[in-house]
């Protein structure tokens, strides 16, 4: 490859792409980009806080809690003289007491109010010059029964546990750890004090209960609930917590610290993450349309043929033509990131995703016979890759599954959440490798015979898969190169299925994963037989299958990167990845997966050598054996 030629082709591609735009289309695209650029910051600045003014709080202006209510967006201060609990108010602040109704909303309002008091006190204390006085360390020993030690902390290193009655209300972030050392809790702190904070900058501090703060006397209440609570009649907070926790559908994933309010029950609706992910992802869908059109127009109009006999190599051509779209995607990403306050890390994290979009579109452009087929292909790419990147990123800071998406890195950066390097690599490596392999496949197809012949898409796909199989060892190599796709597909399966009940999702996932892996080991083998690359004899098929199985066994160790973010610790993560990473017993640690992959790959190869129907049958049998193996392993792991 020569940089000057690649650059020349890139400039040409840019010129022709822009030259092919008529004025109206250009203006329309510009307007969309400007709107998109304006949308992000506008959404962040004026982002409708979920539940703003959600709860109506009766509090007089003379009350010291009035300012607290004003400081909390979810609370709306109402003069108690103009309304009552029976007249639209959710809670009433009567002196040091919170009066609530026996309804979920009212109890949630009380929870939010109490958190607001804690936050406000923390804020006040933070203003003190004497930090020691502001945050005195008080150690309270409280003896509890062992059966009460149920609270788990999902974040490693956090000191929150039931032994610490002060607990940490610092949410799930790592930031809570350091705060705990400073936090002091009142001896009479209720379980509600262990509620994870609903997020935000005060996440690590909201557990602080200032003994002298008004919240101290306001929140704690042991009175029984009463439907006809009147002013001054307190609410039983502990019961509120029980109700709320039992309603959380994701306790298994999020721990049992859930409590308090609708926004802290189950995952709080991650509107901001959703908007950020959307803003970053949307431009790619426009870019791939332009790129895909360029690729297929090149083929249909045979523009690429003179290039093929020019000194430019296939690499020059492919890179040169993709470069403007890749850089364009990154530029848009950089602009959006800059507007939203993001940095280089966001751009670097998004680069593999942009490359994956473009690489998949490149291959689609090469395989499609018409613009109509290309449209179908690009829509599929948009849906699949958007699903892969967007959905997990929505749950940034909420669930470890979010780590599979590069967008999560961006969302975390923009939200000020630290990102460990393991998480960064985990999120970006699969997309990077997948994009690279797709470009390799596409470059291998960038020949006259593949570019300009009009064959059905499946046939061309088989051509593409068979093209690199010049030797037996290449079968194993390409099986290994498919591992990033296996990883992406399995992560996608995990992300898709994790909302289902475990009893349903795990068997389903085991089956899906068995099929994904067996297809990865055999599809190119089938293509090779179909295209006459291999001798269809029995011995040849066994050799090819064995090589493919060995390649998969060696390359699947890449799946170990899922451990970087603790994905196998999840129920579904364990089901998905543990069978690949461990054996049945220590003695079989190495050999069980090797035997499995070799045997199943040979079975598929034996079918592939005969016909498509036999291949499908072989694949089915191989997947069945693989599924059985997975079930045994997962069962043995408990």
């Amino acid at each position, binding site marked *: 490859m020569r940089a000057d*030629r690649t650059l*020349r*082709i890139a400039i*040409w591609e840019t*010129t*022709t792409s822009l*030259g*092919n735009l008529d004025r109206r289309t250009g203006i329309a695209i510009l307007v969309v980009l400007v709107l998109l650029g304006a949308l992000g910051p506008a959404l962040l600045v004026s982002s409708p806080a979920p539940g703003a003014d959600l709860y109506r709080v009766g509090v007089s202006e003379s009350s010291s809690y009035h300012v607290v209510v004003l400081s909390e967006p979810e609370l709306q201060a109402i003069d108690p003289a103009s309304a009552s609990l029976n007249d639209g108010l959710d809670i009433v602040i009567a002196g040091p007491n919170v009066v609530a109704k026996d309804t979920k909303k009212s109890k949630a309002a009380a929870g939010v109010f109490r958190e607001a008091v804690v936050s406000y006190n923390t804020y006040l204390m933070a203003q003190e010059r004497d930090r020691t006085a502001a945050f005195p360390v008080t150690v309270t020993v409280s003896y509890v029964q062992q059966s009460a030690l149920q609270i788990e902390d999902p974040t490693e290193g956090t000191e929150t546990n039931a032994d610490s009655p002060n607990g940490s209300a610092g949410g799930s972030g790592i930031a809570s750890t350091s705060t705990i050392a400073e936090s002091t809790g009142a001896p009479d702190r209720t379980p509600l004090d262990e509620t994870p904070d609903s997020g935000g900058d005060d996440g690590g501090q909201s557990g602080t209960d200032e003994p002298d703060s008004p919240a101290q006397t306001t929140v704690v209440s042991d009175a029984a609930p009463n439907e006809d609570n009147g002013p001054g009649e307190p609410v039983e907070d502990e019961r509120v917590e029980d109700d709320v926790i039992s309603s959380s559908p994701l306790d298994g994933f999020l721990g049992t610290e859930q409590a308090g309010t609708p926004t802290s029950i189950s995952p709080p609706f991650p509107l901001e993450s959703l908007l950020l992910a959307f803003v970053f992802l949307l431009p790619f869908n426009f870019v791939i349309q332009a790129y895909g059109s360029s690729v297929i127009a090149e083929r249909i*109009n*045979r*523009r690429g*043929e*003179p*290039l*093929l*006999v*020019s*000194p*430019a190599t296939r690499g020059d051509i492919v890179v040169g033509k993709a470069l403007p779209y890749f850089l364009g995607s990154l530029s848009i990403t950089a602009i959006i990131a800059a507007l939203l306050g993001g940095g280089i890390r966001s751009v670097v994290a998004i680069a593999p995703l942009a490359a994956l979009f473009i690489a998949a579109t490149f291959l689609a452009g090469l395989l499609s016979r018409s613009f109509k087929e290309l449209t179908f292909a690009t829509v599929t790419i948009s849906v699949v890759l958007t699903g892969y990147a967007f959905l997990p990123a929505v749950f940034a800071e909420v669930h470890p599954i979010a780590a599979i998406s590069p967008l999560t890195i961006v969302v975390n950066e923009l939200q000020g959440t630290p990102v460990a390097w393991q998480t960064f690599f985990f999120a970006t490596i699969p997309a990077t490798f997948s994009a690279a392999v797709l470009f390799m496949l596409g470059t291998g197809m960038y*020949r*006259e*015979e593949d570019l300009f*012949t009009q064959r059905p898409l499946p046939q061309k796909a088989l051509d593409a898969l068979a093209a690199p199989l010049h030797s037996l060892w290449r079968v194993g190599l390409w099986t290994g190169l498919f591992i990033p796709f296996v990883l992406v597909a399995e992560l996608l399966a995990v992300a898709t299925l994790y909302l289902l009940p475990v009893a349903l999702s795990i068997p389903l996932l085991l089956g899906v994963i068995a099929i994904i892996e067996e297809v990865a080991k055999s599809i190119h083998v089938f293509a090779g037989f179909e295209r006459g690359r291999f001798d269809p004899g029995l011995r040849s098929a066994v050799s090819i299958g064995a090589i493919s199985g060995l390649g998969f066994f060696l390359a699947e160790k890449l799946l170990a990167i899922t451990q970087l973010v603790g994905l196998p610790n999840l129920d579904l993560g364990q089901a998905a990845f543990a069978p690949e990473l461990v054996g049945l017993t220590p003695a079989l640690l190495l050999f069980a997966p090797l035997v499995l992959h070799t045997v199943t790959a040979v079975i598929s190869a034996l079918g592939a050598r005969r016909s498509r129907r036999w291949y499908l049958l072989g694949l089915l049998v191989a997947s069945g054996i693989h599924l059985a193996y997975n079930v045994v392993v997962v069962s043995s792991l408990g």
Partner: protein
Amino acid sequence: MTPAVSADGVSKDYGDTVALSDVSISVSSGEIFVLVGPNGAGKTTLVRALTGTIEPDEGLVSVLETPVNDTDPSRIGLLPQSFAPHDRLTASELLEYYAGLYDQSLAVSKVLSDVGLTAASETRYVNLSGGQKRRVCVGSALINDPEVLFLDEPTTGIDPVGRRSVWSLLDALSDNGATIVLTTHDMAEAATLGDRVALLDDGELVESGSPGSLIDQYGGDSVLRIETEETLSEAQIGQFEGDVEQSPSGLQIRNVQPDTIGQFVTQLNELEVRYGSITWTEPSLEDAYLQLTGNDSLGSATGYRKSSAYSDP
């Protein structure tokens, strides 16, 4: 003398379709070599094999004394058959782009002048006439001043004036030492341009040689065709000299020299045979092709071809 381009036993299949079957050619340096045949004869496939854009299933291809895949691409020029550049760019912009792919290239203005497009150099491709578009494409193949030029149907869609200007250009290039391999199904073009012609049919090389030798060898006799309004009797036919046949539309007399046509007219008048037209046809490359291939796929459905009937199909 080492050939500039050679193919030895080249075969290429596309599934069940045999595109080329054991084709061997040899093109000398500075020669204009024309591949002739109807659509589907294998001309384009052979050009692609010669340029290395496809890999033959069997056989060897050499260009400039090296296997084609090892040949310096800057010494080769190619005009594909169906080549449509970006139509919103001007002729000069298009040529500048292709020039940029090579370390050394001709001046864009010179190439535009050579293909007769100086006046239209700043005209967008979309606004050029069909012939001008094709000439831009020819220019793109010339931009690197190639030693071997492959042109796949270079004059398709060009008007007669434009076509003749391209012919002149190719002649000039050949005179300057360039080796040219071009395809056409226009027999007149092949006969006019080609130093040698290769006749392809169904992927096979039927025959090759100079146009004159092919015509002499396979073109057959000259034919005088007389379109009569009535069927002549055996006795009337017997009064004509030469090899006379009765055809559905009249008489067909072979091996008639032009200076004897007047005698036939006199005889027709003497016999009081009413006739519509009299056409004398000399043997052509097309006749040679038909003779060699035994088919009529080049478009002579009537069986009558006029002397100037080297028409585009």
